């Protein structure tokens, strides 16, 4: 993975240089945005609802037992906003969308469609990478914002439904309001923005360097997902450090 980092940085730079072309590619951007956002919405909702719920279930009874009832919602809220929503959604999107990007571009590479684009003087970065990167740059932060809200709701519902916690939904959100401010949400959204670039560039790069037939495409898809997740977790640590300071 690490020997490809230089190539990925170069691809990122080329994509940034292609930004003035984005208006021309707007139809493809909307198409990709719909694919990433709309098609993932239900899965994001289910996943984040249960993550919020589990978080409340794991921490709630112990905290209530120690008289820290008011802190349950804060813990669920901050964990969801700063950490769990951005990283879990990024991993979900790396698996769902990163794999699709690598497979689509990889098969275009293997079946000479990218060569055909080049013979028509159509830059594959402008035509294939730019719309995908722009779409995921907007879609992932929006999905993460949605996931944070649903995660909070999941935590509140579980906190109310679990007798060992038993916090009314209104009280849950009132104490959360005291402990959380907009910066916590902005923190998570900023992280997701960085993760979106990682998924977009790693997946498109893997697609563009695909060699061989169907086995090569399979290998690229696996690498795109695994490399994205590894980089997301590593960058998560770095970003958390930077944002805490």
């Amino acid at each position, binding site marked *: 993975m690490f020997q490809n980092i230089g190539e990925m940085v170069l691809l990122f730079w080329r994509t940034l240089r292609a930004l003035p072309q984005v208006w*021309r590619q707007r139809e493809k951007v909307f198409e990709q945005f719909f694919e990433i956002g709309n098609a993932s919405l239900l899965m994001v909702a289910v996943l984040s609802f249960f993550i919020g719920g589990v978080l409340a279930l794991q921490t709630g009874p112990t905290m209530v037992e120690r008289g820290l009832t008011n802190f349950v919602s804060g813990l669920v809220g901050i964990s969801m906003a700063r950490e769990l929503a951005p990283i879990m959604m990024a991993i979900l999107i790396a698996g769902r969308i990163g794999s699709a990007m690598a497979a*689509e571009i990889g*098969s*275009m590479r293997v*079946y*000479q*469609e990218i*060569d*055909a*684009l*080049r*013979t*028509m*003087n*159509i830059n594959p970065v402008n*035509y294939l990478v730019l719309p995908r990167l722009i779409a995921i740059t907007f879609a992932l932060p929006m999905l993460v914002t949605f996931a944070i809200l649903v995660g909070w709701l999941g935590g509140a519902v579980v906190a109310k439904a679990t007798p060992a916690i038993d916090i009314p939904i209104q009280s849950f959100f009132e104490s959360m309001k005291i402990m959380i401010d907009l910066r916590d949400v902005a923190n998570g959204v900023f992280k997701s923005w960085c993760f979106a670039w990682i998924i977009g560039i790693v997946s498109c790069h893997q697609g563009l360097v695909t060699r061989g037939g169907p086995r090569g495409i399979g290998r690229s898809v696996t690498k795109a997902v695994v490399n994205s997740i590894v980089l997301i977790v590593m960058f998560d640590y770095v970003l958390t450090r930077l944002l805490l300071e």
Partner: protein
Amino acid sequence: MTNSTSTNHHGISVQVRGLKRDFGTQSVLKGIDLDVKPGEIFVLMGPSGSGKSVLLRHIIGLEKPDAGEILINGESIENDNVADKYRMAMVFQSGALLNSLTVGENVGLYLREHRLKSPEEIARIVAEKLEVVGLKDAEKKMPSELSGGMKKRVAIARALVIEPQLILYDEPTSELDPLSSIVIGEEILKLNERIGVTSLVVSHDRDLAFGIGHRIAVINEGQIAVMGTPDEVKRSDHPIVRNFIHADFKRAQ
């Protein structure tokens, strides 16, 4: 490979000088020299794996040589402006149609992406080019719904939209039945006669090569074994060329 819409239909020349290319330890092109004249149909023949398609990919700029140079109308293909100055197109062996686009979208892709015409004008040109290759009813179809021969004809229509001065065909009749091969061969001839395009055809189809080629080069193991008119090639006494040209299936007695 240009954004120009000029209607200059004169073909362009191609010169290949000492072209060498290795893939790992395998030497695929071992110093190829050839000249293709403007408006000529030049056929590159040779056994599978002899380096024909690799040579074609170098001429269109998809590969970079280890040594030697390629000149398009006397200008090195390495010059950035060559791709913008001359209109070149390639018809791939598989057709290389974009599978996510319809036939019509594939054919109009060049004009649409380079914003050369209005959508109405593009639709008119697409219909016209598809009619030229006998596929006027296929515009809304997806590439997966087409036969191998139809895909190749769509690829030719896509190349025609560029109004090329040079067309490269990579195995245009492979995987086709004899009748479809004749249709493709006739398309190449008609195109050459109508717009004077220079055509470089890679094929190991002997009927096609001798039927349409003004000149033929036979490549063997990365080198040109024989080059000349179809008659000269037929008369060649080079053993590899004789074997290749006269090879025939012999039923066991």
